[in-house]
Structures are given as C-alpha cells and as structure tokens.
C-alpha cells in the first residue's frame, strides 16, 4: 500500500490501523476458541487452555482498540492543528517498538503461558490480572510509547492551533496515561489490588475512553456530515460534563463486593445509574445531525458506523450496564455471564464501531477518492454486509450470553447459594448450554463479518486494474483534500 501522498500523521495512522485490524482478527479467532471451549471442555486442554485463549481474546481487544484510538488521533492531528506533526520519526520508532513489544507479549502468552509465583513471572511472563495481564516490562514500554504519542499530540497542537476538540482530547490523554500507572504495582492484599485495578479498568473504559470517542465522534461528524464546529464542540463539552459527572463516582459500582465499605453501595449505585445519560446525549446529537442533513454525507460506510456507534454505545454501555449496576441486582449478577453479555455489546458498540468509522473516513484519502458514496461499482455490498453481519453477530452473542446470565444468576446465585455445586448446576443446565450454543453461532456470524470487513477495507475504492497508476495519478487530489 502506497501512503507517501498522505501527511505525516496520516501515515502513522495507517500503520496503527493496520495492526489494529490484524489484532481485531486475532481477537475474533481466540474468541471463537474460548467460546468453543464452553461447548467442548477438553478442546486444546493442556495446549491452549481457556485461560490462555481468553487472555489473548481480551488483550488483543484492548490493544487493537488502543491502536485504533492512536491511529484515529494521528489521522486527524495535522488537519486539526493545521500544521505538520512535530515528531514523525519519533512516532514511527514508537510504533515499531510498541508493535514488537506486543508481539513478544502475545508469543509469551501463547508459548510460556504461566510461571512460578515469583516476581520474575510478573515482570516477564504474565501479571495475571484481568485485562492488564501484560508483564511489567511491557507496561513500562507501553507507558513510554504512549508518552511519545502524547508528546506528538500536545506539541503539534501547541505549534499549530488549539481547538475545543484538541483541548479535550489532550487533557483526556493525560488522564488516560496517568491512570495506567494505578495498575503497575504489587500488593498481597487482593482488596487493595482490585481497588486500584478498577481505577485503570473503569476509569479507562467508562470515563476517559468514552471522552476520547466523544472527541472522535465530534470530529467524525464534522468530517462526514459537515456539521458546524461550534455545535459539535458545545455537545462535546456537555458530554464531558455528563460523562465525568456520572462516570468518575460511577466507579463505585465496582466497589460493592471487594471488601470496600458499605457506603459504596449507595454511591456506586446512584452515580453509575446516571452513566447512560451522556450516552443518550450522544445518540440525540448524532441522529439529529444526520437527520438534519438528510443522511447525506460524503462517506456512507463511515456514517453508518458512526450511527452504529451512537446506538451501540447507548445500548451496550448504557442500557446493558444499567441493567445490572444497582447493588440489589448486582449481588446476583456480579461475575456471571451478565458481565460477558454487557462486555461484548459495550466494547463493540462503544469502541470497535467508531474505530471502524474512523478507518472508513481515512480510506478515500488513502485510495485518492472523493469519498465513498452510493456509486461504488459493486454497489458497496461488502461494506454493507460486513456492517450487518458484525452488528448482528455481536447483538446475537449479547442476547445469548444474557440468557445464560439470567439462568446463572437464578440457578447458581439465588437458588444454589453460589457454591461450586451451585455454579456447576447452572453451567450444565440446558438453558445455559443453549445460550452458549447460540453464542457460538453468532460468533461465527461475527467472524464472517470481519472477513468481509477486511476484504472491503483492502479493496474499497480501489480500481480493479493498474492500481499503482491510479494511486499516483490521484496523488495531487488526495493532498488537496487533506489540507482542505
């Protein structure tokens, strides 16, 4: 793929997007394996046990979303700051260092898998804490690469021009990087461990990541629908106020059962119940803007994925989160397939969707096209079908897991008294097993969607023959677009 015609930030973005999509594929492959292990428990037993496949499944997700975010920010950086990126070479070095580090981490997860209970294991093999299993050396590497990214963002905006979006974005990145440090220490005390662990997990995915995608959404709506900057900026501030206003203390909904005082039941329940409000605001904002412009944008797949993001974020993070956030219900649902159901719809709806939208925004520039309208030679069936299959697949998995979760919270928790016997009584119940089977079916639907998505991203807007010539011919056009 020739990308010399793109600006510096955009070139970096293409690098990050490429790895992001690769890891997205890995996430789905290992997700399929994990799902199969529920149905065929001795599948790969002793070779790739569930804890390995599941760890790779969720870590590939976290990392590809991070790569997607970094890519998206680099993509908009020069255009938004109206100047050249300050540290292009530094950014490229950081990209390769980070990518090599991640490859090593994944290989160690797959090959070494575990180690003795000593500090060497935590530093070089596996930290064994969900979502942040990456060993400590990699944590430090990640922080350094994120600092390089942050420097590039902050310094480029400082050199060029600040805006509402870039201001929120930059401050949010400070918080995002700082919070990661809360997960980088050892304590024998599991309550204290989980207290700070949630600072990383919750304050990432339910606060700083949400604000980050708010920035991307604001920029994306301006880009795709030509929405007025003043309007998206005002909305962004409203969303930040509502998001941090509810989400920071909403952290309390993870402090119900880990040893923390009882007052967290009230605080966590109340503020986390407010967390859907900013997500409603985002839906209103996106749908209103799209409607006001009669759904006419310059990039149909990107617009479709932005709308998918607005609804996916609201339902996945908002509704599915709210359903089990109150302590009176969470007592029975905490640590059951409810969490898996919520996790699937929320991570996809809130984050995967907008990154896919941002990649589609980039595609016409990469391929030297005006945009992606309805005049595609093949009618755009690939992007439409991948959109449909991915959304159907994830919604189907979410519903299937929810049914298993309901069954589990009744049979294991309420009736079975949460003992191991109660746990397995729920796991072998036909309702649970059926849920797992349907999850697998929809997992395959999701996988079909990703195959089409990758195919589409590689080919959309590309002339069938003599590809090199087309790209070089369209070079001046692309440049004029990127600076407009």
């Amino acid at each position, binding site marked *: 793929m020739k990308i010399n015609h793109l600006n510096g930030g955009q070139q970096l973005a293409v690098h990050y997007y490429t790895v992001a999509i690769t890891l997205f594929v890995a996430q789905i492959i290992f997700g399929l394996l994990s799902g199969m292990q529920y149905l065929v*428990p001795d599948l790969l037993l002793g070779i790739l046990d569930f804890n390995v496949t599941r760890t790779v499944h969720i870590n590939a997700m976290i990392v590809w979303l991070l790569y997607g975010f970094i890519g998206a920010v680099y993509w908009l950086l020069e255009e938004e700051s109206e100047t050249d990126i300050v540290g292009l070479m530094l950014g490229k070095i950081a990209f390769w260092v980070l990518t090599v580090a991640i490859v090593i981490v994944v290989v160690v997860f797959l090959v070494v898998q575990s180690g003795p209970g000593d500090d060497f*294991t*935590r530093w070089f*093999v596996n930290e*064994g804490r969900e979502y942040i299993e990456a060993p400590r050396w990699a944590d430090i590497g990640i922080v350094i690469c994120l600092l390089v990214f942050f420097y590039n963002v902050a310094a480029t905006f400082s050199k060029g021009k600040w805006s509402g979006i870039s201001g929120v974005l930059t401050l949010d990145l400070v918080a995002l990087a700082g919070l990661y440090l809360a997960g980088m220490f050892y304590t024998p005390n*599991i309550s204290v461990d989980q207290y700070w662990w949630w600072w990383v997990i919750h304050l990432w995915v339910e606060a700083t990541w949400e604000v980050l995608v708010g920035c991307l959404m604001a920029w994306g709506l301006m880009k795709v629908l030509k929405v007025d900057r003043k309007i998206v900026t*005002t909305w962004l501030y409203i969303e930040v106020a509502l998001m941090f206003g509810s989400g920071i203390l909403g952290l309390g909904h993870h402090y119900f059962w*880990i040893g923390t005082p009882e007052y*967290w039941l009230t605080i966590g329940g109340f503020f986390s119940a407010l967390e859907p409000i900013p997500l409603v605001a985002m839906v209103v904002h996106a749908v209103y803007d799209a409607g006001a412009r009669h759904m006419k944008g310059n990039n149909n797949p990107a617009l479709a994925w932005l709308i998918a993001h607005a609804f996916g974020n609201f339902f996945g993070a908002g509704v599915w989160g709210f359903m089990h956030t109150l302590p009176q219900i969470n007592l029975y649902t905490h640590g059951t397939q409810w969490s898996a159901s919520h996790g699937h719809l929320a991570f996809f709806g809130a984050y995967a969707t907008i990154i896919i939208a941002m990649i589609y925004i980039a595609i016409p520039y990469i391929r030297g096209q005006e945009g992606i309208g309805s005049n595609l030679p093949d009618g755009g069936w690939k992007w439409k079908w991948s959109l449909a299959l991915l959304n159907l697949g994830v919604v189907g998995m979410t519903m299937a897991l929810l049914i298993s979760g309901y069954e589990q919270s009744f049979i294991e928790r309420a009736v079975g008294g949460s003992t191991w016997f109660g746990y397995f009584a729920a796991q072998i119940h036909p309702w649970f097993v059926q849920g797992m089977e349907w999850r697998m079916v929809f997992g395959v639907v999701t996988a079909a969607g990703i195959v089409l998505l990758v195919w589409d991203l590689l080919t959309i807007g590309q002339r069938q023959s003599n590809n090199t010539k087309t790209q070089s011919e369209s070079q001046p056009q692309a440049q004029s677009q990127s600076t407009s």
Partner: protein
Amino acid sequence: MNNEIPWWASETFWKKTAIWVTGFMFVVLVILTLDTIPQITAGSERVPAYSVINKHIGYEFNDERNMQVPVIGDEALLFGKKFNEEEAEALVSHGKKITQGRNCMGCHTLLGNGSYFAPDLTKAWLDPGWSSEPEREALMIAFLMDPIENARLFGSGRVMPNLHISEEEAKAVIAFLKWMSSIDTNGFPYNFTVIDKES
C-alpha cells in the same frame, strides 16, 4: 451571533461546567479513596490481618446487617502450623503471586472479578465441596497438585488443567484462599452454604 444563543446553550458555559464538574468529582473520589484505603488495609475490621489464617473462619448470617458476614473464631491452625504475622503475610503473598503467575483469573473469578469459566474463589475455602473441615486441607492440596486425577467436574466435563503446582505452592495458594474468605464482602456471595464442621 453570540447574542442569539441563550447562556445555557453556549460553548463557554458548558466548557466551564465540564471543567468544574470533572474537578469536583475527582476531588470527591480522592477523598473517598483516602477514607476507604485504611478500611481495606490488611489488619482492619473489614480486611483481617494475614495471621487470620491461624483462626477458624465462618460465614454467618448477621441479622443487624441483614447479610452473611465472615466470623473469625478460635484458633484453627492451617497445616498444623502457627504463623506469626510476618510469616503469614509472606505465605499469603506467595499464594497470591502463584494465582497471578498461573493466571487463575483467566478462568476463575476472585471477589467476583475475572473470568466465568470456573467457580468463584472468594469463599472457596468455605465451600461445602471440600467435604468437611477435617478433610478439607488434604483434598485441596491433592486437587491443586493434580486437578485432572482428582477432577471435580460436578457433571460438567470441565477439567481444570494441570498447572504443575507443587505441594509447597498448593499450601501457599490455600493460605491465600483462607485469608481471602475472611474479607467482609458486604454479603457477596449471597445465600452461601458453608462447609460442614465435622465429617
């Protein structure tokens, strides 16, 4: 143009609101954290000292709080040995490092957090699946050291893989589990049946 926009819809109003709300909420979180951390430090009422592994631990319904709470009883030594505070912390810490190094959270939940492929370990020490208190330690050691030979499937076919845990490591993990079962988790898990005291 600015005159046409009411104050409540203006960019600057919401910018200031966003900053103040974020700052305020963060300060409240910091204050609550300063209050919470001492309450969950080992040796506090809610999170007992590591030497609690020398004691009997129960999980009984408390009428006043209307939930099950851990009850620390008389001396009930683990592996017939009395640990002083320092030794107990070292053992529990070793146990926790093993659970991290073997990625137990990749299948199990601890305090309800982790994965959902295997049972929650919050009150694993008190689980009636270990037959009875006199038989518990031996059964736990045997299971951890060879979970395939001593499989506990409950009709599920879901075997725990052999993680090559030595006897010494198994004991450390059990100490960690015993200590964890003494944490006051506000009644989680609910309606839990505790292991029989006698065989």
